[in-house]
């Protein structure tokens, strides 16, 4: 049961969520006595890719064709299918992300593989192949039997706690043929926030709701996020009002996050918002309304004015460091 991990690259290095997926793969490999190959697509430094070994990969296949510089789900899927065929992989693992969803979905279409998303635990192999997945945006779990020959698992953040080793992986160039019909789409413009912490990847998130009173009042929240090294997020009304960009919106119809710490500032905690954040390890709620429903889902709460509380927290964080 050879294992292949679809590995995403950001700024020339393997994304943290992908390292987690590689570690997950290594734990499955340990159970089945096989090895893990990581497939990395795009521009990256060999030494950075070898880090996959610290997380349990024995080999990294690096597809670095210049055509693959911009993410393209059709071409990436083609590369993934070729890598699955080359390695004889029976289990394909990825960290869940919108790119990984698109790529693994298309690969599954060719490989006739079941795709199980939001996997939260290692599989149970005692009787077939069973995995636990989160469903209903974190409101429940399902234990799923997977019966296809090749299986695709998309891992939710924090499904495993990686333990690093000093092993390193060999890096091999991987150059499958790519036909022109994989490149019919044309990207005409890319707008991307730079220099900020990526929200789906973040361990710490500071999020604001309508209680922040307007986009011009966001600074205290940004200051706390900055002091913590946290990503910033917002509720749906805030992104609907254009106070913050849509990619910051967490909730039922926005980004689903599962950080170690989620600090909600001036968010009442509608059920649709909770759906996006309920798998966070620790939730802190700051709200001036003691009856805000969010307190029921929180681990720590402060009833108070966010504009009084936030600077105090920022100061305490800075003193800590």
């Amino acid at each position, binding site marked *: 049961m050879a294992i292949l991990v679809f590995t995403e690259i950001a700024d020339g290095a393997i994304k943290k969520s992908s390292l987690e997926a590689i570690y997950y793969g290594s734990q499955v490999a340990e159970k089945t006595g096989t090895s893990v190959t990581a497939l990395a697509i795009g521009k990256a430094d060999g030494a950075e890719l070898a880090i996959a070994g610290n997380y349990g990969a024995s080999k990294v296949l690096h597809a670095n064709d210049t055509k693959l510089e911009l993410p393209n789900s059709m071409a990436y899927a083609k590369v993934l299918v070729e890598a699955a065929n080359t390695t004889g992989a029976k289990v394909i693992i990825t960290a869940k992300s*919108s790119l990984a*969803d698109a790529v693994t979905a298309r690969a*599954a279409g060719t490989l006739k593989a*079941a795709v199980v998303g939001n996997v939260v635990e290692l599989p149970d192999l005692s009787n077939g192949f069973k995995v636990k997945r989160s*469903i209903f945006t974190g409101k429940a779990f399902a234990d799923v039997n997977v019966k296809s020959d090749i299986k695709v698992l998309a891992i939710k953040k924090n499904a495993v706690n990686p333990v690093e080793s000093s092993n390193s992986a060999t890096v091999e160039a991987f150059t499958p043929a790519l036909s022109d019909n994989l490149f019919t789409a044309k990207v005409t413009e890319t707008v991307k926030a730079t220099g900020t912490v990526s929200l789906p990847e973040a361990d710490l998130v500071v999020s604001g709701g309508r209680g922040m009173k307007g986009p011009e009042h966001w600074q205290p929240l940004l200051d706390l996020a900055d002091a913590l090294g946290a990503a910033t997020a917002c509720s749906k009304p805030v992104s609907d009002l254009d106070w913050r960009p849509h990619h910051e919106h967490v909730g039922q119809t926005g980004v689903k996050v599962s950080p170690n710490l989620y600090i909600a500032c001036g968010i009442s905690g509608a059920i649709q918002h909770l759906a996006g954040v309920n798998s966070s390890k620790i939730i802190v709620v700051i709200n001036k309304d003691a009856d805000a429903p969010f307190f029921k889902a929180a681990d720590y709460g402060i009833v108070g004015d966010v504009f009084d509380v936030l600077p105090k927290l920022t100061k305490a964080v800075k003193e800590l460091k």
Partner: protein
Amino acid sequence: MKILVCISSVPDTTSKISFTDGDTKLNKAGVQYIIGPYDDYALARAVELKEKSGASITVLNVGEADAEPQIRKALAIGADDAIRVDADPVDSYFVAEQIATVAKEGNYDLILMGRETSDYNSGVVHGIVGEILGIPSFSPVMQLDIEGGVAKMTREIEGGKEKLEAPLPLVLGCQEPIAEWKIPNMRGIMTARTKPLKVIPASGEAFTSTDKYSLPPAKGACKMIAADEADKLIELLRKEAKVL
């Protein structure tokens, strides 16, 4: 232009989720079913495209008979006819296979659906359909216009968005703000009753089955900290919760 809009029938997002029969089935008692919220955006944009430049809209659901009120609602909103593949939509690949089979026969220019269903949240059906059909798929699409057989789209990417163009046919997973949800009017509701709804059998078999469902453990009590001692929170997060 021929548009196929695929809709799921899912519990209202405010539903309390619970299970019956020894945690092997979703407890449907008291649960209100709706068109998948993302699918509803896809449908709304399809209706706008039809109003703007003319199109026929077929709505497709892979589901059991209890999904028909949602299918009728989609017809009331503006779809012209409907197909239901009679099967329990248990598995992404299985559902995608049904959609691809219908799509092959109907020769659609545009296949729209939500970025994911709000029950299983896998977000892969559009990609699998695209691959089976051998046409491009994009998701999550936040803006869509069709000009001269080319789709002009804005897609959300991690930490931002990109504009892209691709020739039809395409499969797209949609999300807000591609369109505003539409509420059917009385005339729509009346005409929806007589619009054709074809029920066809499924083909193939599901790759997965669910043994058992469970709910997350209940949260313990929320520890309250006085606002004037807010700095204590940071110490608790560090020493007690160990997240800093």
